[in-house]
């Protein structure tokens, strides 16, 4: 194995932007959300509008989060292969599954070889797929609750299936609970990034700012293609 590391441009600008907008929105949404659920503050007078502002911030960041999530999803079809949608289903191909096992073994101390991945590591990518589902759950329930201020409005009509599936109280409950699942993901994510940064020596964390990672093998920057659905090909 060569010790030489190659500097590669992996994370394009929209990917990085979306990532950090998500980070900021999740932090702000969680903080304001917790306060909305349990207002520990005390408004000094009736014109204070404290809860009003907190809810306003929550809604502004909800829109920011929505735009970010949608942008990132569009980019899975237009960005490079590391941003591509196929990244999120590594378990669909034999090579991907093999890679996943490698990473899994390392995580569970069964192997001593830190796996090297150029883009997402397949375990992480699978988790991201799950997290995107949670994002959409939060977006749908969140906006469904938000739209109740104007029943019959466009947003309320668009979200009708959500009201059929859940009562408002149920939405409140699960919107609240899923926040904790996202907390769990964040803990995992930050820890894994830190771990892989150390173990892979690929500049994992700084890559989220610069876009560059260091890898042991040179390769051409790839393009994701929409029609390239099957068969599954390893990106190597």
């Amino acid at each position, binding site marked *: 194995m060569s010790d030489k590391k190659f500097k590669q441009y992996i994370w394009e600008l929209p990917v990085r932007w979306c990532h950090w907008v998500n980070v900021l929105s999740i932090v702000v949404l969680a903080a304001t959300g917790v306060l909305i659920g349990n207002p520990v503050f005390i408004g000094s007078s009736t014109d204070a509008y404290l809860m009003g502002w907190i809810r306003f911030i929550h809604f502004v960041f909800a829109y920011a989060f929505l735009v970010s999530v949608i942008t990132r999803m569009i980019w899975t079809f237009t960005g490079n292969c590391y941003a591509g949608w196929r990244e999120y289903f590594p378990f669909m191909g034999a090579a991907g599954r093999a890679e996943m096992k490698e990473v899994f073994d390392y*995580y569970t101390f069964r192997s001593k070889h830190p796996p090297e991945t150029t883009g997402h590591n397949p375990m992480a990518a699978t988790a991201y797929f799950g997290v995107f589902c949670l994002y959409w759950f939060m977006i749908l329930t969140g906006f469904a609750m938000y739209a109740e201020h104007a029943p019959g409005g466009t947003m309320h009509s668009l979200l009708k299936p959500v009201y059929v599936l859940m*009562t408002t109280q149920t939405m409140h409950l699960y919107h609240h609970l899923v926040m904790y699942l996202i907390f*769990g993901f964040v803990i995992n994510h930050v820890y894994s990034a830190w771990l892989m940064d150390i173990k892979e020596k690929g500049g994992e964390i700084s890559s989220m700012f610069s876009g560059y990672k260091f890898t042991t093998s040179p390769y051409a920057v790839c393009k994701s293609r929409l029609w390239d659905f099957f068969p599954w090909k390893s990106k190597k």
Partner: protein
Amino acid sequence: MDREGKEKQKKEGFSVARMLEERGVSRRDFLKFCSTVTAAMALPATMAPKVAQALDKVQRPPLVWLEFQDCCGDTEALLRSANPTVGELVLDILSVDYHETIMAAAGHQAEANLEKTVKEFQGKYLCVVEGSIPMKEGGAYGCVGGKSHLARARQVCGSAAATIAVGTCASYGGIAAAAPNPTGAVGVKEAVPGATVINLPGCPCNADNLTAVVVHFLTFGKLPSLDSHGRPLFAYGKRIHDNCERRPHFDAGQYVEHWGDDAHRKGHCLYKMGCKGPATFHNCPTQRFNEKVSWPVAAGHGCVGCSEPQFWDTSPLYRRLPNVPGFGIEQNADKIGLAFAAGVGGAFAIHGAMNALRKDKDGASENQKDGEE
């Protein structure tokens, strides 16, 4: 009135206006009443003449009121119906042929009244249902005259012009349908899917809303527009929270923390005492109860969300969120969520510690030798 007039009246049946006149209600009062119901139905004021016209023509359509697994609360609400002189009479505009709580007849003779109406006015009478319908044990959990509630509902609601489910029990199963639903109780629409049903949930339903639905039906010959839970938009089209007189205190961040504290006395927001106004669609703040005297929030107790489906299982009175399914009652979402997050954090802390101790083969050791560039 001359003899001929009387004969004519007998032939044509009753008109509401004439009846009210006989009861000492002037034309002026009648028109005033019509504007009131028009407003209750959230129709434009220009509709009031049409309402008056329609009521003028109505010939006391028959109405039967069935009580199943009920507490009689909606009947009592009807007795308190809001417009003091006329509200009551609106029910007189109907021929209430069957209502166990108020009718004079009993036993077989009462049952005969019901059968007569169902037969003679097939597809033309209105049916009001109070209480849920038990589906288990072949209907033995509820019988009248030896017949199960389900059998009666199928027969009577099935051939009614429309069925008005009053109260949360008749609408969605209500209290009897709360977990573990020992009797398999369901609402009318679920028990008789073929029937035309309008839901007026609430515990009990507001009699003003019932009156408004009946008048709407008589005026336009059809039921008002409904939301996805089968409730008329004129009464359930907005959240309690959005019409609440205490909303400014919510936005300001002024909340009652203890019963009887300063904020409670000053009428601050009851959000932290478990008020379900933000999750409940109903016109309580505007329509109020007992001739608009009051409503729960105005009297210092939070909304419990009684007009929402499954509210019994999802609206603990004094806590904001429902219980988390599958956990004990004291396990709220925050406790479970924090435990989960702490668990994840702890797991990775251990993982991290183990990683700090372990030696990787091709990664760490080899790269260390000549990895510097």
